[in-house]
């Protein structure tokens, strides 16, 4: 992020800020009111909102292009297949994958991670082997590996973090030994916003011959991803956190790894031939896409990618960084409020606690002012334990948020404190 910031000229940085009114008009939902208050949507890390262009694409598909894909010889099936595969190529270029067959459509990041656990983990990880995860992982990059570890008798090793919410990379390097078989690592922490130094960590794993899965759910919406530059073995993210529909995401995997893996789900479309004696599996990516996929959602995902690229990921990263800096300054100025996770390299996510007031009460009262934040453990209970809090409130920003909205949030937090000071 700091690098991106340095690369951009002030004029590029202004692109979003100056066109904000027009940009916000792309998102119909931003006009709604909560009670009598305008919506201030700061729960983008949970799910982002959808621009009209993506909504229109879904409607257009459903009205004029829908049929099942990869099946029939008729016009609509052919058309739907072409649009579906076009979306795959958009995702391929979006992440800089070498080949389109390295992009597998899944139901989302969780599904992608489970695919790797079943397809790679169950085949290659054995009794006594070790899997490295980090203290910053979302439950979806912990639980599948625990299930595998339990089944196989494997062991999970955890990279610790410091008080700022940064991974201790030196400790990570010490965890490798001859039994290390896999690394699962988030690009960006969903609860704290920390950006992890994944390129360096991937290189370390590769020195030990260990493949790395990156959970990119919180990174892909906010920065340019280049899987070849990162040299990650797997990279997963979801459409609904980046202006697309729910129910779809991707798993990127290096072709030779995907080819070596066993299928995750059996069914139609993932086979080359079936008899009761023997089934031959289809080639990648189809080997991992059993059954009818959410075709409309995949095509909508493609439209969301077009929309983001039209704005530009570098411009998005730079503008959101400005929001982060401003929001951090403003929130820090409120007495009795503490930001949890304050590492220098962050996306625009601020987890905070208000002295003496439970986050759920904060969230309920902020909602009264039309402000949507997430409260709770953010599916990252180990992080909450590390910082000795049961829960936090989390404001997470997108490129359609404004400094004015940050001011509404700050006024909202002060008003919560007033209610409790009665």
């Amino acid at each position: 992020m700091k690098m991106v910031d340095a690369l951009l000229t002030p004029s590029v940085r202004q692109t979003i800020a100056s066109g904000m009114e027009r940009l916000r008009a792309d998102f119909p939902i931003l006009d709604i009111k909560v009670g009598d208050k305008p919506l201030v949507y700061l729960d983008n890390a949970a799910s982002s909102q959808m621009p009209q262009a993506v909504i229109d694409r879904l409607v257009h598909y459903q009205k004029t292009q829908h049929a099942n894909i990869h099946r029939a010889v008729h016009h609509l099936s052919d058309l739907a297949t072409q649009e579906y595969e076009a979306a795959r190529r958009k995702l391929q270029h979006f992440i800089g994958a070498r080949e389109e067959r390295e992009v597998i459509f899944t139901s989302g990041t969780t599904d992608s991670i489970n695919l790797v656990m079943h397809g790679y983990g169950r085949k290659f990880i054995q009794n006594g082997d070790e899997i490295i995860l980090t203290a910053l992982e979302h439950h979806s990059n912990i639980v599948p590996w625990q299930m595998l570890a339990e089944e196989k008798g494997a062991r999970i090793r955890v990279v610790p973090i410091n008080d700022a919410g940064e991974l201790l990379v030196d400790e990570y390097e010490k965890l490798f030994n001859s039994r290390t078989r896999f690394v699962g690592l988030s690009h960006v922490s969903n609860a704290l916003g920390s950006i992890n130094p994944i390129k360096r960590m991937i290189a370390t794993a590769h020195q030990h011959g260990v493949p790395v899965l990156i959970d990119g759910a919180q990174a892909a919406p906010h920065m340019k991803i280049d899987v070849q530059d990162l040299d990650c073995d797997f990279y997963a993210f979801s459409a609904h956190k980046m202006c697309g529909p729910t129910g779809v995401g991707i798993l990127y995997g290096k072709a030779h790894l995907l080819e070596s893996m066993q299928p995750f789900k059996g069914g139609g479309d993932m086979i080359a031939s079936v008899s009761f004696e023997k089934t031959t599996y289809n080639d990648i990516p189809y080997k991992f896409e059993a059954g009818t996929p959410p075709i409309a959602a995949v095509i909508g995902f493609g439209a969301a990618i077009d929309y983001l690229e039209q704005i530009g990921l570098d411009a998005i990263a730079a503008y959101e960084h400005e929001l982060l800096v401003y929001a951090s300054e403003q929130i820090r100025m409120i007495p009795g409020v503490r930001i949890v996770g304050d590492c220098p390299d962050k996306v625009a996510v601020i987890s905070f606690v208000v002295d003496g007031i439970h986050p759920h009460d904060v969230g309920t009262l902020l909602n009264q002012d039309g402000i949507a934040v997430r409260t709770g453990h953010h599916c990252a209970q180990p992080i909450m334990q590390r910082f000795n809090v049961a829960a936090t409130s989390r404001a997470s920003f997108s490129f359609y948020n404004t400094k004015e909205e940050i001011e509404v949030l700050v006024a909202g937090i002060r008003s919560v404190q007033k209610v409790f000071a009665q």
Partner: protein
Amino acid sequence: MSLKSIYQEVILDHNRKPRNYGALRSPTHHATGHNPLCGDRIELDINMLDGHIEEIAFQGESCAICKASSSMMTNAVKGKSHQEAEALIQEFREMLVSGEDKSFDHLGRLKVLAGVRDLPTRVKCAILPWHTLHAAMNSTDSATTEADDHASKLVANNH
């Protein structure tokens, strides 16, 4: 009703100065209540004597609504028989989940919590201590808000 009025003085007062807060030295009954959604967790201790709640205490990490509900509940059930307490649990639940326009005057001070009904995402916070009381009296180790619609399930957990 306005949402802010949920956080009225009496609730904020119980949140600030919870009654019967702490642990009993050697409780005859105990349960842990946990709301996995928000992380609310309360420990409830009871001394039952001749089928009556002789002493009751709670402690834990929770939001204001859960803490106030716990505090007011411990006041309300102290001295009550197991059966009377169960009846109160049912009535309290009914007040928070039923859409019926029914008078809950007999619930007395507990009525200030009725407004939580307008906050569907927070109903579990108010009900958690009552689930936990039910679990403790029936010697179930733990209660969870995830069994919300099936109080009887908590009893079933005994077996």
